[in-house]
């Protein structure tokens, strides 16, 4: 008999996330992977600033709360201090692709042996729905009330595509969690990102296209559909870099 249980790597603290938010699903996927790989005792998680700021209360492994955008630098320190630790960061789009872009790019360029879980929901959730570096052209937010005007504030950044131009990173994949098949694919990617670190392969980043029904002003169901209709056309899913696979092919 299979009994549905909470992964051991999650604490019993109830999530504070809004109804329909996909952070809960992604937390669970990360925790399931930590359980399956048997690495909870040596894993250190780095929480960001943003909606998932309190992730340190939700994961059972040792946790560090970083300054806004600095999680990859903090992770670099932790990993260099104790290379036998498994170190992951969990960051949103404002944290990773705006204020922390330098830390993101340079940790990828160094092929720092860490795992980055990047939540892209095209909006700043915690502060109440402002324009993110990944907000879509025309997207209405609190700070783009007439829709994102690309002439005034530029175009959204495709992180996986941008990082894929670097020699450094080992693995870059974009997934989403808006359906059961997609959740299964996302888990596979997250697992690979942790497995790569265990094998010493280096920097792996999984971008998870996520929903924010509250700040998008939609029902949870409409938000999941909006991912298919609007987000994925701009942010196509798939593997953007897999250096080990490239090496295999070259052989």
């Amino acid at each position, binding site marked *: 008999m299979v009994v549905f249980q909470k992964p051991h790597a999650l604490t019993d603290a109830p999530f504070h996330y809004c109804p329909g938010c996909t952070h809960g699903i992604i937390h669970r996927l990360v925790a399931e992977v930590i359980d399956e790989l048997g690495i909870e005792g040596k894993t250190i998680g780095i929480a960001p600033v943003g909606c998932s700021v309190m992730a340190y209360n939700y994961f059972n492994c040792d946790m560090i*709360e970083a300054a806004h955008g600095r999680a990859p*630098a*903090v992770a670099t320190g932790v990993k*260099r*201090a104790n290379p036998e630790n498994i170190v992951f960061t969990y960051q949103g789009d404002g944290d990773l692709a705006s204020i922390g872009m330098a830390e993101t790019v340079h940790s990828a360029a160094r092929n720092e042996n860490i795992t980055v879980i990047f939540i892209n929901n095209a909006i700043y959730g915690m502060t109440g729905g402002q324009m993110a570096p990944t907000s879509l052209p025309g997207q209405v937010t609190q700070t783009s009330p007439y829709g994102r005007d690309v002439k005034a504030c530029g175009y959204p950044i495709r992180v996986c595509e941008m990082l894929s131009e670097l020699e450094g990173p080992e693995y870059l994949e974009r997934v989403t969690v808006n359906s059961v098949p997609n959740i299964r694919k996302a888990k596979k990617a997250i697992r690979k990102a942790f497995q790569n670190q265990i094998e010493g392969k280096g920097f792996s980043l999984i971008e998870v296209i996520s929903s924010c029904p509250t700040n998008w002003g939609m029902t949870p169901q409409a938000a999941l559909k909006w991912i298919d209709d609007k987000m994925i056309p701009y942010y196509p899913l798939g593997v953007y870099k897999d250096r080990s696979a490239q090496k295999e092919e070259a052989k």
Partner: protein
Amino acid sequence: MSEKVLMKGNEAIAEAAIRAGCRHYFGYPITPQTEIAAYMAKKMPKIGGTFLQAESEIAAINMVYGVSSAGLRVMTSSSSPGVSLKGEGLSYLAGADLPALIVNVQRGGPGLGGIQPSQSDYFQATRGGGHGDYHMIVLAPASVQEMAELTVKGFELADQYRLTSMILADGTMGQMMEPVALDDLTVAPMPEKPWATTGTGMKRPHNIVNSLFLQPEELEKFNFERYERYAKIEANEARFEEYRMDDAEICVAAFGIAARVSKNAIDEARKQGVKAGLIRPITLWPFPKAPFRRAAEHVKAMISVELSMGQMIEDVRLASECRVPVSLCNRAGGMIPSPDQVLEAILGAAKGGN
């Protein structure tokens, strides 16, 4: 007497840090402290340590935050404009009660300023530099030997009290060469760090390194607890040197290179019949209040000699409770007061001028 080696002040800091057990250094090039990074780049790979040139000062201080979270001795170094960038990290280190050593080899400011020696980051160092209620232990060396000794002391105090220590040097201290007795350095064993995030090993509840407390009652409690620790530091760790103060009528206050210049001026003043003496704060925070309070009972006047527009002078006035006039003798922007300028100030104060 142990063997002495001729070293630059910056190199002495780097070597002393390694001897203190620091195996992780993160930095970003900036004059006039880059010798520290260069020394670490050469040495660390050979002793199994980490030297990493970070992408920015901000990244470097956050790498420090990571290593400190893991419970190891760690440092970064920079000069004034770079230390401003580290301000965010310094506040987070304070908020998470993490020990670390930060070196500021000061240059003239504000802005990009210049690259010549300065003491104009005194306020930034002793009043915080980042946001929120916090302090760092601030150590002010006045010789290359002290650069080494205070580096070791900085690591020890940081671990003992769980806060950041800062070496507040200046371009002169960093660049000048003097003989150093490195073998005289003694290093206390590192205390246990049960709070460190090294992995639960599935044997204990998870550790969390954090500075976010959304409940104001809780955040207030941590602030009060931290200030109880600061009170202990103020009671136990204030350090200073007194020079010819016993019968002094004029008290010079100076730290770092300004103290060395002042000693020459004091000797000359005494030759000319004016009894001058020096109080040299070695810790700028905690500021050594007691010797100034004592001196205020028997001196006519105090002079704060500084490489700034007058910053330490506020602490001299507070510590002496304004019982005697306190004047400023200064140069700024990378200039250093000459012994003659300090002598003139001493003679002027003795005559009752200001």
